[in-house]
């Protein structure tokens, strides 16, 4: 079970969190023309990298904040965690 540092609450066990997917995906802006291909990429296509990955976790049984976690997908090492609005390196 992972031990995730929530920037709001401190280190908490994984079972307080829900995984939320790739944190690098940016939603296209509202009311803006977008090609079918770009929209499809946003809705459906995700990379599944081996190694460092910036991902979203929702601290659902804690502060209910979405946070960004930089984690190695093969070793589970967590390098850094960020608040939702914090700039990532």
């Amino acid at each position, binding site marked *: 079970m992972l*031990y995730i540092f929530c920037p709001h609450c401190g280190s908490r066990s994984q079972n307080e969190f829900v995984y939320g997917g790739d944190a690098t995906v940016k939603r*296209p802006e509202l*009311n803006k023309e*977008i090609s079918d291909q770009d929209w499809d990429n946003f809705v459906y296509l995700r990379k599944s990298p081996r190694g460092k990955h910036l991902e979203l976790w929702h601290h659902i049984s804690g502060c209910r904040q979405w946070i960004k976690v930089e984690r190695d997908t093969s*070793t589970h090492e967590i390098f850094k965690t960020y608040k939702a*609005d914090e700039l990532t390196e």
Partner: protein
Amino acid sequence: MSQDFRLDKIGMVNRNKKISFTFNGKKYFGYEGDTIASALIANGVHLVGRSFKYHRPRGFFGVGVDEPYAILQLERNNERDPNIRATEQEIFEGLEVKSVNCWPSVNFDIGAINNFLKMFFPAGFYYKTFMWPPSFWYKIYEPFIRMAAGFGEASIKHDKERYEHKYEYCDLLITGSGPSGLASAYAAAKNGARVILAEDKPRYGGSLLTSDVNIGNQTGVEWSEKIITELKSMSNVIVKNRSQVFGYYDHNMLVMSERIGDHLPKTQKYLPKQRLWYIRAKEVLISSGSIERPLVFGNNDTPGVMLSSAAKEYMKVYGVLVGKKPLIFTNNDSGYETAIEFKKNGVNPLILDTRKEPSSDIISEAKNLGIEIKFSHVVVAAKGYKKVKSADIAKISDNKKDLSNIENIECDCICVSGFWTPSIHLASQSGNKSEFNEKIDAFIPKKSKQKENTIGSANGKFTLEETINEAFNKGYEVSNNITENNNKVSIPTVVEKKSTEHDKFWCVPLPKGKSYKRFLDFQNDVAVTDIELALREGFRSIEHVKRYTTLGMATDQGKTSNLNGLQLVSDIENKVVPQVGHTTFRPPYTPVSIGAIVGREVGKHSKPTRKSPMHDWHEKNNAVFVDAGVWLRPRYYKQGNETLFEASKREAKNVRKNVGVCDVTTLGKIDVKGPDAAEFLNRVYTNAWLKLPVGKARYGVMLREDGIVMDDGTTTRISENHYHMTTTTAQAANVLSHLEYYLQLVWPELNVNVVSTTEQWAGAAIAGPNSRALLMKLFTNTDVSNEALPFMGYKEADLFGIPAKIYRISFSGELAYEVNVESDYGNFMWEKIIEVGKEFQIQPYGTEALSTLRIEMGHVAGSELDGRTIPHDASLEGLVSKKKDFIGKRSLGRSAFIKPDREKIVGVVPLDKTTSIPEGSYIVKDPKAKLPNPKLGHVSASCWSVEYDNPFSLAIIKDGKNMIGQKLFAMSPLKNKTIPVEIVSSHYVDPEGKRVRA
């Protein structure tokens, strides 16, 4: 009752307390502190089971977790516990155990015929023997294999025992209370660290319990008792016995199973049988010790052949002799310690040492005691079927290849020692890549992957002095890093006998013309010939050899078999062991009860039960409940001998005719607040929200980004910047997460907050033509007329002194209101509604009537919004704004979503007006078409229309818009029914929606 093999003056069992138990129906006795193994050996019983494949007789090989054979079935409080190790299970009064894998009995086992059919059971036999002809598989092979597979028999009864989970945090977890565990725990605890010390046996001390050593002028036993007593008295230390740390997981999470009641006749009232500890440790010291390695020779699986360290422990801890004519077969000094112990207890052993001319303190002591020793000698084969009766021994040449002077000598047990294997399982599980140490011919942990260090003999340190020094220093060092304290305790002086090098010899060659089975893996019946065959057949990777031959599998996890197997593979391949590598050690290190893994979360406790504040009233009024997610909701209120069908019809009719009340507390409720709330709702919902006035409600649909409907519900503008959103019961949690996602990550610039208020409000839906009349009597101070409180209006009102909120919304399609009060007043509100409603013929209605009412109105719910439908499919396209953008809008233009014959919701009525259509039925054009019949769609919900008194269903079918009026068929292959139907509008009752506005 005398025990022939019990020693009087030695052992740690409590001689004042005799305990009787039965084994295979026969009564035996032992003493408090005995295991099943020690008590049976004391009674001269060695035959306890049959082996897995060949059904060869099985005795005891080890003394603890290392035991590969003696696996028994335990009966306790009329329940069965399969696969318990006789060497670990302590006896208690009335214990009943029996052998497994034998029929009709352990003494006469029909399955032993396999031993003579070995040619059918070579390595990988399950890929070979049972392959042809294919038709034999189903009727002959599979039942045969099923019968033969596995050891014990699991109980099919509900396990009434209690198991618990516990979460714990500590600075330092130490696994094993041998010399290194005790020393490091003591050093760390004295330096202020929070320490957990776990010991899998009932007694602390590990090897100190059996070795003849001196620490700080005390015997090993005295020293360990002193340290444990002091550790137990410290508030920063948790000391646990009968507790096995069996798994090392990510981020220094370790799991330990504590056996609390397994050794007691009955579980204590306030204690669980077992407790599973999830321990998050800042640092871990693995002090799990080492396991003696077997030597490989002919028939080395015969009962009576066992590890020499086990024989010593049976004497020193349990006061039990494993034999009276022992043969010690060793390649190192450890065997001598066992021989000396035998001699001290009046038994004359014979030592066969594979080495030519070793010399050390221990060997000299053995010589001085007059123990007979034969150097350069080996056991060729054990003789005897159910128990060792004699052994063929021989002189072995210096190059260890040739045997000479083979002779048979009488003996009743053979104690073997092939040196020691560190238990590196936990380190390996943490990700530590081990390295091969030539000096000890075994793997030891290398670089720590997680926050873990291995100490003592688990780290290949086999002298006590090295171990104690390393452990004291590590305990201090690790604790100093965490606590930054500098309290260093002094390291005691150690006195021990010096030993000399071991012999790398491990496998006795076969004499000419003999084909003895020489076993490597005792639990899985893997012999030397099996490994040889696997390699001949081309298996090279050790992982493949393992899977093909089953070497090191199952509960044994290579504890005794691993290294000898690797040695053999390396010898045949002309490699060295590190080139071959070892197989992966997987958790659990020892078997764990399923009950302990599950814990308390069984049956009703597997998830929480949520009840509305009016639950007690429903219960008192004969409600029959249904699980709605984790909520319990009244399905119907039973009157007399009514069936579900009759009751729901009565309740629904009463709503259409008079007035009904339904508990809608379970609906999800979310407060949306902030200056940008309207803008936010406008982006979340498909319809327009910017112009909704205060005091008005609006129905909304929200999509996922892929265009699929996520949820629907009404949202009311309570004040300028305050909205009250409702969701369906099932989606409440998902919708909240969805809103938080967009507010925190996508549009953080919006000044809006959301919070769940589901449990703050109790809700009652009052529906039916009499509902306004009832409301006028409930809220006497408030104007609830059609003009003052129109459809989709909202008002705050006073309910007999209690503040209430009235929403004029309707799911039933009747004139209806939803009244909310704070949860604590829920029951008061409900009782008032029932009391005042009497004169209007009010009746409570449950979810079944609620479904009927919404289905015949064509209102969609979860069965239509099933994660596959877009607004169009549910006839909600009118709510999709063309002007503004919202979540998922871009996806609605996808080609599959705009094709002309896109699925749409319709109503379905059987032509005979009497046959109900099963939910899930297919709608087809031709019932006799060739299968698979091309389907137009499926029936999503069915009811008995109380308005027209005939069955009515909703279906989502291809080109639904143009299907109305057509005669089709509803087919249910499951119920074997084909029903001619007519397609009608989904708005079956009051299609103009006059009633809700009345």
